[in-house]
C-alpha cells in the first residue's frame, strides 16, 4: 500500500482539546438517592404539617394559592375542561405544576392542598441544597445544621407552608444553580444541560429566574473562555445551556402574541401599581435585605473578595446572582412591573442565594471551609428571631404578620392583615358547602371566577359554574347581560370594585335587588336566584371590559380585601 491517504484528526485528540469532560466521566460525589429522598420527605412532611396547622386550624389562607389551585381544578374538572384556565396572570407553570394536586376533587376541596402546593417545592429546594452541600464537601452534621437552620427560618417556613408560589420557581432556580456548581466542580458538560433545563422550567414558573439565567450564561461563557476553551466549545456549550430557556421564552412570547395580541404582555403585564418614588426605592431595598435576609450583607462582599482574590469565577457568578436577587425588586418597583413593590416575599430569594453563596464560600476557602459553614449555621440561627420580628413589622407584606399572630395568638379567622385584607376562609367554606348541598345542574351559577375562585375551589365542582373560562369573556358577558336565558343563580362578591358580575348587579350584590333574591349570603358573597322571567332593566350598568380585565388581574395578585 503505497498510496498516501489523508490522515484526519483523531477523536481522542479532539476530546483532549476540550476543556470540559467529554468522552469520559469525571469523578463526582457519590449518588445517594436515599439521602435525597429522606431530605425531601422530611421537609415536605414538616412544611405540610405546619401549613395544615396554619391554614386549616388558624385560617391563615393566602388567596393567591387558592386562585392557582382553582385554575388547575378547572383544567381537569371544568365544563368543558380548559387548559386556558391557567391564564396569563402568573407564569404558567407556577399554576400548571399544581395540576396533579387537583386531579382528585376531594383533595382539591380540602384545605390541605394549600400547604402541599408549596411544601413539595420547598422540599425540592432543600434537596438541591443538600446536594450542593455535599459537593461543598461538608460533613453530615454541618449539612444538617445548614438545612435545619435555613428550613426553620420563619420567612422560609411561611412561604414553604402557605401555598405561595415563591418556592415553585425557587426550587428550579436553586436546582439550576446547583447544576452550574456541579459543572464548575466536575467540568462534566451534562450539568450544563441540566442547569439549562432547570432555568427553562424555572422561567415558566417565575419570570425572575431569567435574571439568574442571564448571569448563568455569562458564567458559562466566562469560565470556558478563561480556561482557554476554543470558540466552538464556548459557543456550543453556551448554546446548549441557553437553548431551553430561550425556547420557552420564545414560545411564551409567541403565545402572548397569538392570544393576547401583545408579545411582551408577560413582561409588562397589567399591573396597577403606582410604584415607589425613586428616592425611596434604595432605602426600601436596603430595608428589605436588612430585615429579610441580613446574611446577604456578609455573603455578597465575601463572594466578591474570594472571586477576585482567588480568581474564582463561580464565586463572582454567585455574587452576581445574589446582587440580581437584591436589585430585581428595586428595578421592578422602579419600572412599575409589579403590583407589590419590594414585597417581603422577595427576601426569600435573597436569603436562599445568600445561603448558596455561603456554601460555595465554604468550598472555595477549603481549609477554613468548616469554619465558614459553622458560621453560616450560626448566622442562620441568629436570624430566626430577627426574621420573626421582621414579619411582624415589615410594611410591604400580605399575611406574614398574620402568620406570626397565628403562632402567638391563635385562630385568625376574621382578623385583618397589615395590608387591610380580611383574613379567613369561613365565608368561602360556607358558600361552597351550600352550593354542594343544593346545586346539581352544570353551568347553572354565573360568576366571575377571578373573584370567586375560593368558593369554586372549595366546592370541587367548577362545572357547576358558568364562568369566564368556559367559553371566553364574550360568551360570559352575553350570559351576564341575559342571565335568565343561561343560568339559575348568580354568585356575586360583595366587593363591587373588582367583581365584574357584581358591578353589573350592584343591588343584588348588596342583597337589595327585589328581582334577584338572595338564597345564600355570607359576609363576602351572595348567591342570588335568577327567575326565568328576569329581564335586566334598561338603565342597568354596562360592563367596561378594560377596567374589568385590570380588576380581574389585580384580584388574583393577593389576598381578598
Amino acid at each position, binding site marked *: 500500500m503505497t498510496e498516501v491517504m489523508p490522515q484526519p*484528526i483523531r*477523536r481522542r485528540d*479532539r*476530546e483532549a482539546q476540550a476543556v470540559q469532560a467529554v468522552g469520559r466521566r469525571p469523578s463526582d460525589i457519590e449518588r445517594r438517592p436515599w439521602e435525597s429522598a429522606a431530605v425531601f420527605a422530611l421537609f415536605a412532611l414538616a412544611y405540610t404539617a405546619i401549613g395544615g396547622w396554619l391554614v386549616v386550624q388558624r385560617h391563615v389562607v393566602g388567596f393567591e394559592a387558592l386562585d392557582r389551585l382553582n385554575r388547575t381544578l378547572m383544567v381537569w374538572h371544568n365544563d368543558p375542561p380548559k*387548559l386556558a384556565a391557567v391564564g396569563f396572570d402568573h407564569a404558567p407553570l407556577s399554576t400548571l405544576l399544581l395540576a396533579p394536586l387537583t386531579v382528585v376533587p376531594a383533595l382539591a376541596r380540602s384545605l390541605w392542598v394549600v400547604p402541599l402546593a408549596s411544601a413539595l417545592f420547598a422540599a425540592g429546594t432543600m434537596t438541591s441544597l443538600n446536594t450542593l452541600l455535599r459537593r461543598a464537601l461538608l460533613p453530615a452534621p454541618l449539612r444538617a445544621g445548614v438545612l435545619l437552620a435555613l428550613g426553620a427560618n420563619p420567612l422560609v417556613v411561611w412561604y414553604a407552608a402557605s401555598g405561595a408560589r415563591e418556592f415553585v420557581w425557587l426550587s428550579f432556580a436553586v436546582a439550576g444553580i446547583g447544576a452550574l456548581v456541579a459543572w464548575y466542580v466536575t467540568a462534566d458538560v451534562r450539568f450544563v*444541560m441540566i442547569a439549562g433545563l432547570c432555568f427553562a422550567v424555572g422561567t415558566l414558573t417565575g419570570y425572575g429566574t431569567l435574571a439568574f439565567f442571564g448571569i448563568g450564561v455569562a458564567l458559562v461563557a466566562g469560565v470556558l473562555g478563561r480556561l482557554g476553551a476554543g470558540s466552538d466549545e464556548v459557543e*456550543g456549550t453556551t448554546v446548549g445551556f441557553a437553548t431551553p430557556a430561550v425556547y420557552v421564552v420564545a414560545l411564551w412570547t409567541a403565545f402572548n402574541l397569538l392570544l393576547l395580541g401583545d408579545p411582551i404582555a408577560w413582561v409588562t403585564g397589567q399591573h396597577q401599581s403606582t410604584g415607589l418614588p425613586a428616592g425611596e426605592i434604595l432605602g426600601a431595598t436596603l430595608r428589605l435585605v436588612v430585615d429579610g435576609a441580613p446574611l446577604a450583607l456578609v455573603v455578597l462582599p465575601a463572594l466578591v473578595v474570594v472571586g477576585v482574590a482567588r480568581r474564582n469565577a463561580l464565586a463572582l457568578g454567585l455574587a452576581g446572582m445574589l446582587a440580581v436577587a437584591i436589585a430585581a425588586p428595586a428595578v421592578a418597583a422602579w419600572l412599575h412591573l409589579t403590583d407589590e413593590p419590594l414585597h417581603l416575599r422577595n427576601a426569600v430569594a435573597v436569603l436562599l442565594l445568600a445561603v448558596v453563596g455561603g456554601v460555595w464560600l465554604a468550598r472555595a476557602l477549603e481549609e477554613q471551609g468548616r469554619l465558614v459553614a459553622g458560621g453560616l449555621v450560626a448566622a442562620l440561627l441568629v436570624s430566626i428571631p430577627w426574621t420573626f420580628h421582621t414579619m411582624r413589622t415589615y410594611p410591604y407584606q400580605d399575611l406574614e404578620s398574620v402568620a406570626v399572630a397565628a403562632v402567638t395568638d391563635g385562630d385568625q379567622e376574621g382578623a385583618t392583615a397589615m395590608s387591610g385584607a380580611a383574613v379567613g376562609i369561613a365565608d368561602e367554606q360556607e358558600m361552597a358547602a351550600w352550593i354542594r348541598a343544593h346545586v346539581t345542574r352544570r353551568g347553572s351559577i354565573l360568576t366571575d371566577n377571578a373573584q370567586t375562585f375560593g368558593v369554586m375551589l372549595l366546592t370541587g365542582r367548577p362545572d357547576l359554574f358558568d364562568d369566564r373560562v368556559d367559553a371566553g369573556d364574550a360568551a360570559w358577558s352575553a350570559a351576564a347581560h341575559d342571565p335568565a336565558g343561561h343560568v339559575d343563580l348568580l354568585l356575586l362578591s360583595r366587593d363591587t370594585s373588582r367583581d365584574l358580575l357584581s358591578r353589573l348587579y350592584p343591588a343584588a350584590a348588596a342583597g337589595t335587588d327585589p328581582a334577584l333574591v338572595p338564597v345564600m349570603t355570607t359576609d363576602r358573597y351572595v348567591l342570588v336566584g335568577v327567575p326565568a322571567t328576569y329581564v335586566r332593566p334598561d338603565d342597568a350598568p354596562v360592563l367596561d371590559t378594560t377596567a374589568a380585565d385590570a380588576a380581574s388581574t389585580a384580584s388574583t395578585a393577593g389576598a381578598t380585601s
Partner: protein
Amino acid sequence: MTSLLPGDDVRTRLRTVTAPAEAPEAPAVVHATPDPEGTRLVTLLLAAEAVTEEQVEAALVEHLRTGDAVGDILVAHRALAEEYLVAALSQLHQLQRVSLRGYTPDAAIAQRLPERLARRLQAVPIAEADGVVLLAVARPLDDEDLLRVEESIGRSVRQLLADRREIDQLLQRVHRDHYADLATQHLMRTQPQMSAHVVITTAQKAGLIAVLLAVVVCAVVRPGATMVGLVGAASLLYLAVSVYRLRLTLRALGASLETDVTDAEVAALDDRDLPMYTILVPLYKEAGIVRRLVRDIDDLDYPRTRLDVKLLCEEDDVETIEVIESLDLPPHFHLVVVPDSQPKTKPKACNYGLQLATGRYCVIFDAEDRPDPDQLKKAIVAFRNAPGNVACVQAKLNFFNQDQNLLTAWFAGEYSMHFELVLPAMGAAEAPIPLGGTSNHFVTATLRELGAWDPFNVTEDADLGLRLHREGYRTAMIDSITLEEANSQVGNWIRQRSRWNKGYLQTWLVHMRHPLRLIGEIGVRDFVSFNLTLGSAFVLLMNPIFWTLTTMYALTRAGFIEQLFPGVVFYAASAMLVVGNFVFTYLNVAGSLQRGQFGITRTALMSPIYWGLMSWACWKGFLQLFTNPFYWEKTEHGLDAGHEGEVAA
C-alpha cells in the same frame, strides 16, 4: 486440471536452501525462537532472502505475544507473500503444492468432504486417481484430522498444499448453492413467523381492514367524534414517544450507562487468549473506498492472524471484486462473492458471510467505517464482564464528515443523541435495542443459533435486536465509537432514511403478528418500550398532518380545527406541540454536547427543518412498503471528498 505445480525463483531458492548440508545456522538477530518447525521455516526464509531480518524479528515479537505461527504473521503483515510461505512449507513438509486459481473440480468429488469439516480444516478434495483422493489443504493436516477426513471420504487421501486464499475461494465455489440457499431461506424455513418475507399476514390484513372499516363507519355516523378520536390517539402516541425519549435522555445525562471497559482492562488482555474475530464487511459498488477500508482494518489493535475479514461482494459488482483482487490482500482478508439472487440485500450478504465465519465473535462494519482501534478488544472485555445472556455488544456510531454541510451536521447530532443517550439508557434498562447497522459485535454461535439476519428485512439490525431480546438475550453498549460517512446529499439521504423507516415498519409488523405472544416473551414493559421505539416512524408519518393543522389554525383560526382538539386531546396536543418539539430539538443539542461535538450544537437548533426531511423520507418508505417492500435503497458512499474530518483514536 490446470497447472498444479508452478515454480519461480524463490521456490527454486527455497528448494536449494533446504538441502541439509547447506542449511545455515539461525541468524543472530533471532533472540526468541519459535517452535522447531518455525525455526526451520525462519531459517529457510532468511536463507532464501524471502524476508529480512528486521521483518523476522518483528514477527517473532508478535509470535511471542500471540503464539501464532511466524509464517502466518509474516504473511498477515505483508512481509511475505502467501505463495512463498506455501512454497516453504511444502519444502519443510515435503508436500507437493497445488494452484487452485481458476480451477473447478468435479462437484461430486469436491463435496465428498462435508462442508463443515472442509471449512474447519480448510481442505477440499480436488481429484481422485487410483483410489486416492487428492486433497488440497491450507496447512498439513495432523494425523487425527487426516484420519477423520479419510473416514469421511471413504478413501485414502494425498495432501497437496495450496494458497489459503485459493482454498477459501474454491470452498466458496463448491458450496455456493448451499450457502446461498441458507443465506436466503434459513430463517424463512425455520422461523417463518419471524421473517419479513410476508410483509403483512392475513390476520394482520383482516385486523387492519376491520379497523379501517370501523373508522369509516364511525366517520359516517359520528364524523366529528371520529376525527377527534383519531387526533386524540395520534396525539397520545406522539406524546408518549416524546416523553419516553426524554426519560431515556435524562437517565443517560445523569449517569454513565455503557458497559464499563477501561483502558487498563484492554491493556491487560493477553493476546494469546484472544479469539479469532470475524469482521463482516458488506460492499456493493464501493470499489473506491476499498483501499481506505483495508487501511482502517489494518489499524485495528488486534493480531491480524486472529482476524477473519470477510469482504462481502455481490456477484454483479465486478468492479469492487476486481479492485479487491488487485490488492493481493493477505489471507485474513477473504473475498466472498455472494451469488446474484433476490433479495439482494445487505442481510443476505451477511448471512452468506456468516456461514464462512471462523471467529468466536463477529462484527459488521460498513465499507466506510472507521472503528476505534481497540474496539474489538473492548468488545471482548465487555463480553467477559457482562452477564451470560449478553449476546451482542453495540458500539456507538457517529460521523467523520460532520462538518461537511448542514445535513451532515444534523445527521451527526441525531446520531450523537441516539448512540450517546438513548441507546445507552435502553441498554441499561435492558430494553429491546434496535441495533445500529454496523459495529454490533455478536457471539457467532448465538447469532447462528438465532437464524442470523432476516434477508427480507431492510432494517435487519433493528429486527435482530428484537429477536435477540425475545430469545432472552441482551445487548450491551460500550463506549467505543465507529465513525462512518454521513450522507451529505439530500437525495442520497432520503433514500437511506426511507429504507430505515420502511424497515422499522416491517419490523413492527413482523413482531406484532402475535402481540400477546410478544408480551408473554418480553413482558409488558419491554413491549411498551418496543412500540414506543418503533413508534417514532409513525410519529414521522403524522408530523406533516399536524404541522399543516397547526399552520392552518394559526393563519385562519378555523373552527373545525379547534373542534378536533377538545379537552384532554387538546392537552395532549399542546404538550406535544410545546414539549415534544422541544424534546426532539434539545435531544440533538444534548447528544452533540455529550460527545463534545461543540461545533454542530448550533445546527441542532435548526433540526425542525431536518424533521421535515425525515418525514418526507418516512412517507417514501411507508409507500414503498406496499409497492416494493424488499427493495434495498442503496446508500452511495464516498461523497465526503475533502472532508476527512476525524477518525477514531
